[in-house]
């Protein structure tokens, strides 16, 4: 299947990446080339194959349900572009 400019814009929107018209135009052949190439996977009969979930057999561990971390608010906020009153600050989201 081949993707058009509208699809490119939709993917960019889902990816939360702003793109210009010119960038969208440039992405069309590029993504089509790459997706066309990966489509060869369709040749492989996988009807009886389970998808890979872990390369090395390994069970997810459970741990005690206790607090192991905390009291590091200032460290967490240290790299925020804008932090106010002990919170991350973002543009107004509710009118």
């Amino acid at each position, binding site marked *: 299947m081949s993707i058009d400019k509208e699809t490119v814009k939709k993917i960019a929107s889902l*990816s939360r990446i702003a793109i210009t018209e010119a960038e969208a135009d440039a992405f069309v052949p590029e993504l089509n080339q*790459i997706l066309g190439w*990966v489509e060869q*996977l369709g040749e492989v009969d996988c009807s009886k194959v389970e998808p890979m979930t872990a390369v090395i057999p390994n069970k997810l561990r459970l741990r005690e349900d206790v607090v192991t971390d905390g009291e590091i608010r200032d460290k967490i906020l240290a790299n925020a572009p804008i932090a106010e009153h002990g919170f991350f600050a973002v543009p107004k989201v509710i009118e």
Partner: protein
Amino acid sequence: MTEIFEMGIADIRSGIADGDFTAKEVAETFIARVSAAKSLNAFLVETPEHALAAAEATDKAKAAGETLGKMAGVPIGMKDLFCTQSVPTTAASLILEGFTPQYESTVSANLFKAGAGMLGKLNMDQFAMGSSNETSAFGNVISPWRRNDGGNSYLTPGGSSGGSATVVSGRIAPAATGTDTGGSIRQPAAFTGITGFKPTYGRCSRWGTIAFASSLDQAGPMAHDVRDCAIMLEAMAGFDAKDSTSLNLPVPDWEAALNSNLAGKKIGIPKEYRVENMPAAIDALWQQGIEMLKDAGATIVDVSLPHTKYALPAYYIIAPAEASSNLSRYDGVRYGLRDLPDGAGLQDMYAATREAGFGPEVKRRIMIGTYVLSAGYYDAYYTQAQKVRTLISQDFDKAWNSCDLLLTPTAPSAAFGLGEKMDDPLAMYLNDVFTVPSSLAGLPAISVPGGLDGKGLPLGLQIIGKALDEQSVFNAGLAIEERAGFVAKPEQWW
């Protein structure tokens, strides 16, 4: 005596232990080498004070008669994918410019605990996405190697661990950390005539390592030789409760068990790795590798890994899919860049921040990943790729019925010139053809220098082993190292 800057980990360790020189002299030597190599653009941040402090601690411990750590007095380069406390970490991306981690990655913490110091943070492909170190937001890394044609054009050190490859091959640092998602330790090691090791998935903790594709990412050492890689991996590896895929197994003493006698070992030669248009020099090197392993006592057998040709396309679905998910965290809210156009709302801020912060290759992979995970395409692309990944892993399992290790070339070419492949993403992706299958299967693999091509550039041989059998991989690598007699070094022109 060999000059200090020519030494690797083992030589530095014994020199300090024997009192031939102090750790401080070692640190000062390499700090001067770093300062003199700025034109190669290998370091994003220099941390001489860190290297000196670690050296002082080593000298003090030695004076007090304490037992020294495995990496005591060895100043290393740190790939900028590892978060280092109080030292800026960007993964070579503008989106993390100004980010200063408040914590230490497990791998770097382990190395520091073993006595290593840090010379600085190394340039790399942005978010480790690239095979030539040309996707860095902070400029290309230049290889110390040049072709012998007198043209002196700049060559790639490979990628994504390009800074690591440049500093180790240029004797600017005795060793460096790397990370490998589809070949990012092994291919740059091959391009620069050094040794690079990717352990079994789960040996090294991923905690504090900036994520690219979590089911594939593994840290590993890049160093002068097999012994140095074994020493350094012992220091890096180990169980970590903070990484859910960390293997809860003891770290073997790989260095002590090094043994290049391969009697009784069977080495498989996978026929599917004979790709079209492979340069004659690489085919010849592969043959020489076979002879070297025979000479070490191994038996050579032909094996088949029938799904090899599907490894790259599967990888270029799985890795971008995981990347699109992992990189969703860069939102301009919690750390890194924020681009807030006048009057913009939250959604516009996300889009503007990510537009300004990510480089073209990163955007390309996020877009592909988003597409293959989107409603209606998930099964056709992502699930199918994960099924093919199962088949690729089963290919290896079947091969292990008739052999213990595999021998292949590391890369399908020698280092290429900067700028030669950047306009064709697909051609760049094909560079990982020999390294991606073992990444998809989580297997340990090493690249050791085997020889030079007609233009005087290094070529690498790859040994792939069974999961958790790092020892056999090290041993076969050592057998090649002892026989290849690779002593070529780049002439210092920078």
